[in-house]
């Protein structure tokens, strides 16, 4: 019988240029199943000149937390040196990164996010909240104030503020109900000047909203229990689905989508083994515009990203 040598280290290589959720998944797939397989060491290698969108930053942060929680060794290598850590530092990435994550060349000596908090109109610091306890509402107020600051010169700032605040409130409140994980969740937003886009991201490290809902739906004999994963997701965003027998519940995603559609936003949903992209058409998120990929490498949690287009 031959002996097979199992590799003990895997490397997630984030290439140069902008990394959005799709490019992140490409890199994540090439890396191998870092969390699901028996690797003992994970290296995240960030090429010089790599720029991650805000939703990817939260996914990487959650990934690091999960690697640490599984007692694996993890090393973040910034090939561009300190030049490439500055932006992440400014967002508060290193404040939230577990101390046991090794960083090369080194962690910043002090947090620039703490130093300049709220000072940049296009950039918002990452907010952390519990995965199991309802978030403080001051957090929503901070995120709302941030988007007001960021879009202050626009005529539609009131509408943007209203929608962004509601989306954050509903998505963050969903985490405590569905994550079932002691690991923290994160929320952040960023306005991208060139694309005239506001990207809202909320990530947790839980079991994923589908896994949270399915047993409860089956228990109450809800017809939605028989839906496939994509149909169930689309239904959550279109009509709302609750694990409880209560029509007052389960409307958080539906309401978030109703706000998002006003900005023709694409919704990106990453669950532990699948990713779904909902594209808007005719002022709704139709079933036939849901693009899903299953069988992805494990990334615990529900990672939601709304890309709002500003006119």
């Amino acid at each position, binding site marked *: 019988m031959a002996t097979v040598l199992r590799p003990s280290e895997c490397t997630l290589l984030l290439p140069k240029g902008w990394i959005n959720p799709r490019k992140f998944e490409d890199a994540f797939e090439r890396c191998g199943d870092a969390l699901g397989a028996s690797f003992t060491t994970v290296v995240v290698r960030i090429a010089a000149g790599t720029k991650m969108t805000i939703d990817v930053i939260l996914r990487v942060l959650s990934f690091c937390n999960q690697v640490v929680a599984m007692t694996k060794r993890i090393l973040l290598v910034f090939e561009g040196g300190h030049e490439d850590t500055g932006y992440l530092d400014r967002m508060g990435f290193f404040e939230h990164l577990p101390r046991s994550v090794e960083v090369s060349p080194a962690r910043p000596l002090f947090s620039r996010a703490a130093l300049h908090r709220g000072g940049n109109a296009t950039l918002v610091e990452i907010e952390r909240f519990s995965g199991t306890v309802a978030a403080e509402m001051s957090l929503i107020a901070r995120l709302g104030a941030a988007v007001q600051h960021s879009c202050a010169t626009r005529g539609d700032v009131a509408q943007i503020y209203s929608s962004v605040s509601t989306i954050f409130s509903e998505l963050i409140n969903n985490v405590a109900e569905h994550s079932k994980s002691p690991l923290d969740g994160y929320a952040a937003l960023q306005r991208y000047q060139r694309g005239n886009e506001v990207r809202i991201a909320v990530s947790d490290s839980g079991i994923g909203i589908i896994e949270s809902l399915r047993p409860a739906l089956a228990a109450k004999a809800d017809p939605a229990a028989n839906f496939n994963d994509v149909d169930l997701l689309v239904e959550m965003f279109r009509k709302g689905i609750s694990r409880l027998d209560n*029509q007052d519940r389960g409307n958080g995603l539906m*309401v978030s989508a109703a706000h998002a559609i006003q900005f023709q936003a694409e919704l990106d949903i990453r669950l532990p083994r699948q990713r779904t992209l909902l594209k808007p058409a005719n002022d709704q998120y139709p079933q036939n515009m849901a693009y899903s990929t299953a069988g992805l490498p494990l990334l615990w949690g529900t990672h939601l990203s709304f890309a709002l287009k500003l006119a």
Partner: protein
Amino acid sequence: MNDDNGWGRLQGRAVQQQIVSFIEDRPAQQVFKLSMEGVKQIDASFSSEAIVAVLRRYRGTKGICLVDVTDRDILFDLDLAAARAEVPVPVWIDGSIEIVGGQPSPGNREALQFALERHQAKAAEFAEKAGFSIANASTKFKQLWEQGFLMRSESVADSGGVEFVYQRIG
């Protein structure tokens, strides 16, 4: 509310308790107006707990409506939450009443519009105007009352029997 925004279920439940307690302390009072003065925004979770759940609880027994709504946009989330729960929410804006959230069946829309346009309405009056039988008009008003769109009280009909009078809320 502690500030001008209503976020999330926890805050919504706290406000719900305050409203319920206020109503329970006034058993003889039939109509309650929830003032939205100073409220900048409420999300769907807050709306579900603080408004939709309260209106459902008192459906058919008390009339509850929203007043002092200066910005229609703040009703966006409430409308979605109440529509999904099929709970009508009467709202007074600029001196006229409209219903957000749950809506009547197509067959009852005309009857509701008739009732909302006047202080009080009787089935016989609507039957005459719309060309329905009194029994048919009565059924429509009864359904609208049961579903929380209207309030109802009894009066003595010209014939000496009991006649129901339907009122808009607020």
